């Protein structure tokens, strides 16, 4: 009896190796705990977003007024549809992933290959959609005036519709001196992108047109942005306006608080990076499946593990969708 069995001295000891505590393999359990810690990272980000939003609860941008684009529908106000489409793409790629895992359980190699292929395509489409969303956000649409305190003043007409800076600006000649090292501090350089119109032009144009009003960042009790009367608008622009801003980056944001843009870039960027790395991992496993690695191994558990990661990415998006676009 002793001669037939090789004993390691760890039989029956759960943590000695070979056994599966909680009936999951080592790899799967570690994937779960990685996901848990990553989930806490994301909830840290979203909690920080919530913190900043509660801090500026009466002046935070309204998502419906920020994300209004849809491909091939230029100029049409389409809030939420695009991001809903992105959500569907990601949920659907989650479905094909779980179908791949299911096919793996039954050792159906060809099915696994096809389902993983669709999952990867879905992931790529999603990352591309996010790039498009970012592009629109960065380029901006209407532009706004920034005040001394870094607040945003947007232009609307009497009907409450937004008016773009180019339409407000008067056609007057304004001289702008270029910033060179010999004139400024040695580390300052001319900005690589400049707005199309200057603050002076916008101001002159606004004063000349009685049909223009200013919409501020502040919010009423009903959750709508405050639109100033004509006199208040003129006073506000004269007293506080300092410059124009078009689009958004980490410092300026035509939609409202720069913090909103910071969180948008950081959270959706971090999520997009997860999607991208998920696509890379999926692709590696996909190649392995094609080469028959798991067929020889007799188990498609690797597909299951990347599947867990992929569903997690979907899970995070569900929350980002709610807190960035809906709430």
């Amino acid at each position, binding site marked *: 009896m002793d001669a037939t069995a090789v004993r390691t001295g760890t039989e029956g000891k759960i943590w000695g190796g070979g056994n599966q505590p*909680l*009936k*999951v393999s080592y790899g799967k*359990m570690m994937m*779960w*705990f990685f996901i*848990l810690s990553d*989930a*806490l990272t994301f*909830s840290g980000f979203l*909690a*920080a977003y*919530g*913190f*900043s*939003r*509660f*801090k*500026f*609860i009466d002046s935070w941008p309204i998502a*419906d007024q920020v994300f209004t684009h849809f491909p091939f529908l230029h100029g049409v106000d389409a*809030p*939420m*549809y695009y991001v*809903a489409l992105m*959500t*569907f793409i990601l*949920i*659907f790629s*989650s479905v094909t992933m*779980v*179908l791949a*895992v*299911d096919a793996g*359980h*039954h050792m159906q190699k060809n099915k696994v290959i096809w389902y993983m292929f669709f999952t990867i395509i879905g992931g790529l489409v999603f990352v591309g959609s996010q790039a498009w969303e970012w592009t629109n956000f960065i380029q901006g649409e209407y532009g706004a005036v920034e*005040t*001394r*305190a870094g*607040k945003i003043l947007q232009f609307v007409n009497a009907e409450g519709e937004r008016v773009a800076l180019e339409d407000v600006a008067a056609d007057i000649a304004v001289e702008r001196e270029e910033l060179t090292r010999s004139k400024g501090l040695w580390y300052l350089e001319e900005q690589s992108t400049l707005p199309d119109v200057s603050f002076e032009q916008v101001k002159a144009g606004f004063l000349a047109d009685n049909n223009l009003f200013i919409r*501020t960042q*502040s919010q009423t009790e*009903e*959750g709508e942005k405050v639109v100033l009367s004509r006199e208040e608008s003129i006073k506000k622009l004269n*007293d*506080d306006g300092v410059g124009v801003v078009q689009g958004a980056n980490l410092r300026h944001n035509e939609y409202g608080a720069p913090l909103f843009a910071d969180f948008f870039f950081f959270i959706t960027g971090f999520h997009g990076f997860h999607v991208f790395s998920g696509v890379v991992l999926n692709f590696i496993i996909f190649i392995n499946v094609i080469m028959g690695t798991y067929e020889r191994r007799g188990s498609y558990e690797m597909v*299951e593990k990347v*599947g*867990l990661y992929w*569903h*997690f990415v*979907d*899970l995070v998006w*569900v*929350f980002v*969708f*709610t807190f960035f*676009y*809906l*709430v």
Partner: protein
Amino acid sequence: MAQDAVHHESASKRIWTVFFILSVITIVEVFLGIVKPEFLVDTYLLRMKLLNWIFIVLTVVKAYYIVWAFMHMEHETKGMRRAVVWTAIFLICYLMFILLTEGEYIFDVYHDGYQSWDF
């Protein structure tokens, strides 16, 4: 083998059912987000709009289906489930409570102070 086939069929049926549920919830969310019914916006529950509570509850329901059905949490042992899910839920609730309370406090400080921030 026959048993296997039955199991297979029910597994993919479950996947499509869950996909259907997730889609319906998303459509409802988008619909509510665009329409924004008056009474849901005006009604407050625990200092938050009822509409926002609905969004959060629907999100948690979606998360439940993704974790339970897609990530196969429903087939894991009770110990495994608790180790992952309870840890996350406890820590996230704690973090949210602390940071949102603090954010609201800072809002009050800005709002009630003698300093104007809007210039």
